[in-house]
C-alpha cells in the first residue's frame, strides 16, 4: 500500500512546491517563463503512447518556448485526479469522458480531439452473467469512466452500488487483485482488462461500455493565448500522424510509454509491446476521422453519460450540460488541419 501511495505523495509534493506560473498568466520578458503543464496517464493505453509522443515533440517545445512557455508533463494514475487541477496547475490533459464532464462542469475547458475510442470493461472471475455480480467484491476507480461503466452495467440488470461490495483500487493493481482472489471483478480501461484476460483463463469480460479519452486544454489558455493552444492542438495531430506513419514510430512510442509507466508504477505488470501497439491502433489510430470529433446533427456528445452521472449524484444537480457542449465546440483542430504546413503537421522532430 505504501508503495502505491508513494508516487501520489511525490506528485502532490511537486505540485505544491514547484514554482509554477499558471499558463493563463501570459509570458512576459520581465518575468519568469510561464509553465504549460500537461497531465498525462502513463498507465492507460493508448493515452500513454500519445502522451509520451507529445512529450518528445521538439517542435512543440520550441514553439511554446518561443512564446515564452516552459512545457511540463505531469503523470497521473487516473484522469479523476486531474479534475480539480485543470485551469490552475494544469493547462492541458488527456482524460476520459467522465473526468471531461466533471472538468467542464467545474471549469472552462476546450476539448481538442479524440484520444481514445474504446470500450471500458468489467472483468470478472468465475462469473458468467452480470446478474451474478450481486454480493461480489468489485474493484473500481472512483469517479473514472470505468466507474461509469460499472454503474451502467449494474443498472442494466437492476442492481445498484449497494448490491455489490465496492473496493476502491488503482487500475494497475486490479488484474493482480483479481488473480489473487482479492476481488471477484473489476471495472477498468486498457490495459487492465487485457492483462487480466491474458493472465487468468477464468477471467471473462462481463460488460463493455463505450468510452472515450479526449485531449483537452484549459479555457483560460485558449482564450488568453490561442496560439499556444493551437500549438498543443497541432502537436496532438502530429503525434497521431507520426504514429500512423510507420510501425517503427509506433514501437518507439510504446517504448517511451513503457518507460513512463515504469517510472510511475515500478511494480505494475507490463503488457507486451505487440498488445500495446494493437490496442493503440484499435482504439485511436484506426478509428475513422480520429482525432477529429465529427459533429453530427442531433448527436450531443456525452449527453447520456452526463444524465447518467447526474442521476447517480456524481455531479451537482444544478450542473448545466451546455458547459459540456461549449467545451466540445472548440475548433482548434480544424484550424490546424486547415493550415497543415503552417502548423507543421507533416514535420516530425521527436527527440528521445
Amino acid at each position, binding site marked *: 500500500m505504501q508503495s502505491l501511495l508513494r508516487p501520489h505523495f511525490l506528485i502532490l509534493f511537486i505540485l505544491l512546491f514547484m514554482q509554477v506560473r499558471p499558463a493563463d498568466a501570459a509570458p512576459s520578458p520581465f518575468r519568469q517563463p510561464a509553465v504549460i503543464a500537461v497531465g498525462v496517464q502513463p498507465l492507460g493505453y493508448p493515452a500513454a503512447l500519445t502522451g509520451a509522443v507529445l512529450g518528445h515533440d521538439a517542435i512543440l517545445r520550441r514553439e511554446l518556448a518561443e512564446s515564452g512557455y516552459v512545457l511540463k508533463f505531469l503523470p497521473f494514475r487516473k484522469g479523476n485526479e486531474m479534475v480539480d487541477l485543470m485551469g490552475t496547475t494544469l493547462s492541458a490533459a488527456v482524460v476520459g469522458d467522465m473526468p471531461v464532464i466533471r472538468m467542464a462542469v467545474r471549469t472552462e475547458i476546450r476539448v481538442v480531439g479524440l484520444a481514445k475510442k474504446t470500450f471500458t470493461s468489467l472483468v470478472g472471475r*468465475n462469473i458468467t452473467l452480470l*446478474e451474478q455480480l450481486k454480493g461480489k467484491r468489485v474493484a473500481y476507480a472512483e469517479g473514472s469512466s470505468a466507474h461509469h461503466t460499472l454503474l*451502467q452495467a449494474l443498472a442494466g440488470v437492476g442492481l445498484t452500488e449497494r448490491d455489490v461490495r465496492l473496493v476502491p483500487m488503482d487500475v494497475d493493481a486490479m488484474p493482480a487483485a483479481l488473480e489473487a482472489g482479492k476481488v471477484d471483478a473489476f471495472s477498468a480501461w486498457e490495459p487492465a482488462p487485457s492483462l487480466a484476460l491474458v493472465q487468468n483463463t477464468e477471467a471473462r469480460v*462481463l460488460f463493455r461500455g463505450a468510452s472515450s479519452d479526449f485531449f483537452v486544454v484549459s479555457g483560460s489558455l485558449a482564450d488568453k493565448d490561442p496560439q499556444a493552444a493551437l500549438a498543443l492542438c497541432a502537436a496532438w495531430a502530429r503525434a497521431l500522424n507520426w504514429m500512423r506513419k510507420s510501425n517503427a514510430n509506433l514501437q518507439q512510442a510504446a517504448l517511451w510509454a513503457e518507460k513512463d509507466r515504469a517510472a510511475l508504477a515500478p511494480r505494475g505488470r507490463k503488457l507486451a509491446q505487440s498488445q500495446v501497439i494493437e490496442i493503440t491502433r484499435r482504439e485511436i489510430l484506426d478509428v*475513422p*476521422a480520429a482525432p477529429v470529433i*465529427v459533429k453530427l446533427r442531433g448527436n450531443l456528445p456525452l449527453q447520456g453519460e452526463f444524465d447518467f452521472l447526474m442521476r447517480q449524484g456524481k455531479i451537482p444537480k444544478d450542473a448545466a450540460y451546455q458547459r459540456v457542449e461549449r467545451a466540445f465546440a472548440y475548433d482548434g483542430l480544424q484550424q490546424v*488541419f*486547415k493550415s497543415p504546413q503552417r502548423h507543421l503537421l*507533416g514535420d516530425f522532430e521527436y527527440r528521445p
Partner: protein
Amino acid sequence: MIAPRRRQGWLQGIRERIIAYFGILALAGGGALLFVLVYGTPWLGIEGIHGLKEAEIVRALENAADLKKQSILTWLASRRTELAVVASSGDFVGAAAVLLKQEATPGARDEERVRILCQHLITLKRTIPDAYDTLALVAPSGKIIASSAPDEVGSGYRYRDFLDAAFTMGATEQIGTAWADGHPVILISRQVATRDRTGRETGEVPAVLVSVTRPQQSLEALALLPGLADAEGHQMILVGTQGELLASVPERKQELAARDPLLARLSRQAMTRTESSRLETLDDGRRVLSAYRYVPLGVAQGWGIAVAVDQDKAFAPLVSTKARAALFGLAMIAIALVLVGWGGGRVAAPIRDLRDKVLALEGGDFSARAAAKGGAPQEIGELAAAFNGMAGRIENSHQELEGTVAERTRELRLEKEKARRYLDLSGTMMVLLGDDGRIKMINRAGAQLLGLPEGESLGLNWFDNFLPAGQRKEVREVFEALMRGEQQILEFYDNLILTRDQGERLISWHNILVRDEDGSIQGVLCSGEDITRKRQADLERGELERQLLHTQKLESLGVLAGGIAHDFNNLLMAIGGNLELVRHVLEPESPAVKYLENAHQATKRAGDLTRQMLAYSGKGGYSVKLVDLNRLVGENVDLMKASLRKGATFAVQLQSGLPLLEADPGQMQQVVVNLVTNAIEAAGEGGAITVATRLSDYGVAQLAQSRLEQKPQPGRFLSIEVADDGCGMDQTARERMFDPFFSTKFTGRGLGLSAVQGIVRGHGGAIFVASEPGAGTRVQVLFPLAASGSDRIDDVAQAEPVRPVARETVLERAAARQEDAREEGAREEGAREEGAREEGAREVPPAGVAASAAAEGQEPGGAATGMVLIVDDEEMVRLVCRAMLRGLG
C-alpha cells in the same frame, strides 16, 4: 424378574437398521453429490455442471456474437483498405487533382480523366463482386465527379448528410450507415488530399471518395455456431443504429419483430452500445440467455448484435442428464440396499441367536447356552463363549441364592408371624397408613374396633371409610401435608372414627412416621386407644359433681334461709304478740292504734316472707292432711281471678274424681298461689291462663325430666299444671327460675318458685317446666299419691287427722319433727290463751321464754304452773325467752 420383551417393529432389528441407515445415507449422499455436481458449491470452489453448462452456453453465444462482429469489422476493414488504396493511388489522385484544379474550366481532356477515374472505380467494384453498390468521387458541392456508375457523373450525391461529415477538416476517413432501397448500407469516405509541389498536403480537401457498400452477403451469412444455429429456441439478430432489425436468424420480418417479446428485448438492448451477457426474463415469462455485441461504425453510429437462447431448451439436455443420473443413482442404491440387507442378515443372525439365549436366561432358563455357528464373526463367537461362561456362573449362583432365599424367607415369615402376634396381643389399635392414605396393616384389636374382619380393611382408604364426614377434609389435608414433609407429626391427639357396629368412637392416637432407607416418608404408624367410655364416664362424673355441688349449695342456702327464717319468724311472732298486747291496752280511739295496725301488717308481710323461705328450705311448718286438690285449686283460683289483668282469661280444667292428696294444705295453697301469680304476671293483659289438675302415671324417663335433684319413684301422681301464653323464658331464665332471689320482675323477690320447689321437694314430688321465649310457659308439679291412694273426697269427712306416715324424704322428717312441735305449740298456745284470759291485762310471757326456761331446766315459778312452755333449740330464742321470763319474774 423377567424384563418385558420389546415390541418387534420396523427399524427394531440390526439388519433393518443397517438397511435404513445405509439407505438414508445413500440417498442423502447421492442427493448431495448430485446437487453439488449439478449446481456446485462456491464456498468449496466446486463449479457445478449447471454453472459450467451455463458458462458454456454463454461462451458459445458470445463466440457467435464475437464472430459475427469480427466478420463485419473484417469485411469493413477490407472495404476501408480498398478505398484507401484507390484514394492514395498515384494515378487516381493525380487524375483527380488535375481534374479538380480544372473543374472551373473544363476541357475535352477532362472527360478522359473522368473516364479514367470512373474506370478505377468500376474496376474496384468489379473486383469485389456484391461488395459495393456505388463508388463515387464527390466534390464539396455534392456534385459527383466520377462514379462506378458513369451515368451519375455530374449529378448530386444522394447521401448529402454523410458528405458533411466526410468533408470535416482533418477527418481523413469517415464511416456512416444509411438505408438504400430497403437495405442497410455502409458509407465509407476517404478525403482526397491536395499536395503542393514539395508533396506536402495543403490542407485543402477538394473531394472525397465515397463507397456505398452493402454487406448483404455478410448479413445473410449470419450463421450461428454449430450446435446453436440449428437448435430450436436460438435467435441471432443484427440491429441498426435506430434499433431497426437488419437481419435475423431464424429470419423474421421487420414488421413482426416489434411484436415478438424476444426480438423486442434483444433489439432494445443491442442498441445500448454496450456488450454483455445476461439472463433475462421476458414479459411472457420465458427466460433467455443472451449475449450482446456492439459494432462501431463511424463517429456515433454502430450496429448491435444479439444472440439469445431459451434457457429451458438450452438446459434440456442437462435436465435429461440429471434425470438419468438420478435414476441410475437410485438403481445403484437399490442394488446396494439388497446387498446390505443380505450382509446385514449374515451379521444379525448370530446376534439374534445370542439375543434369544439371553432372553431365555432372563426368563429363567438357566440352562440356555449360545451356540456359535461356523461363519459367525469372530467377535460374536467370543461373545457367545463369554455368555455361556456367564450363564454357567449365573446358574450356580442362582441355585445357591435360591437356597439362601428359601431359608431367609422362612425366617422372615416366622419373624413376621411373631411380630403379628405381638401386634395382635396389643390391646390398642395399630394401623399403618401408606402415603396414599390406605391401610397397609392393621392388628386384630384395630380390626375388631372397626368392626371388620382383619383382611377386609387392608387397602381401604382410611379417610373415606373411617372418618366422620365433617372431619375428612381437615384430617386429610393434615395427612397430605405430613406426607409432603411440610408439617411435623402430631404424636398424640384424639379424634372420632366410624366403626361398622359401634358407630362413632373416640380414639386417642399415638403416631410415628414410617420412612424408607433414604429417609423419604412412606406412611404413618398409628396406635389408637378407644377412650369413648372413659371420656363419657368423665363427663358423667363431672356432671354429677356439678349437680352435687349445686345441691349442696342450695341445701346450704336452704339451711341458712331456713335457720334465719325460723328465728326471724319467732321474733316476728314475739313482735306480733307484743303489738297485739299493746293494742289491747290502748283505747280503741287512741291514735296509736293506727300505727300499731301498720306495724302488724308489716309483721304479716314479713311472716309471709319467712314462710316462703321456710317453704324453700323445707323447714316450714307442716300440717299434713288429706287435701282435696280440686277444691283447693278451685277456691284459690276463684280468689285470684281478681288479680287478672285486663282482657286476660282464666281456664280451669279440673279432673274429676281425683284421689285426696296427703299434703300440707297451706303449702299446697302456697304452691297454687305462687304458680298462678307468676302466670298472671307473665300473661299480662289479654293473656290466657290455664290451670289444670289430673292424675297420671309417670315412668322413670318422664320423671328424669324433673327439675328436682331427687327424682321420685315411678308411679301415680296428682298434678297441678299452670300454663300461660306469655313471653316465655330463655334457657338462662329456665335454668335459674328456681334459684332463690332470682327474679325477672322488678317487684319480685325471687322466692315464689323457690318456695314451690322446696314445697314440692318436701312432698317428694316432681316439677316439669316447658317454656320457650314467646311461646309461653307451662309448669307442672307432681305429688305422689299417698299409700292409700283410693281415698276419695267422700271419705274426708270421716277422716281423722292423721299423723303423717314416717317417710324417707326431708318432708317426712320435717313433718314428723314439726308435728311434735305443733302439738307442743298447740298446748303452749292453749295455755297462753288460757293464761291471757286469766291474767287479763297481764302481759303474756312469750312461749319461747317458757320453752327456753324449760329447756334449761329452770322452773318458771308458781305462777307459771299449768302453763305450756314452748322450747326452741335456737340460742337466740332461748336467750329471748330467758329474758322474757326474767322480766315476768
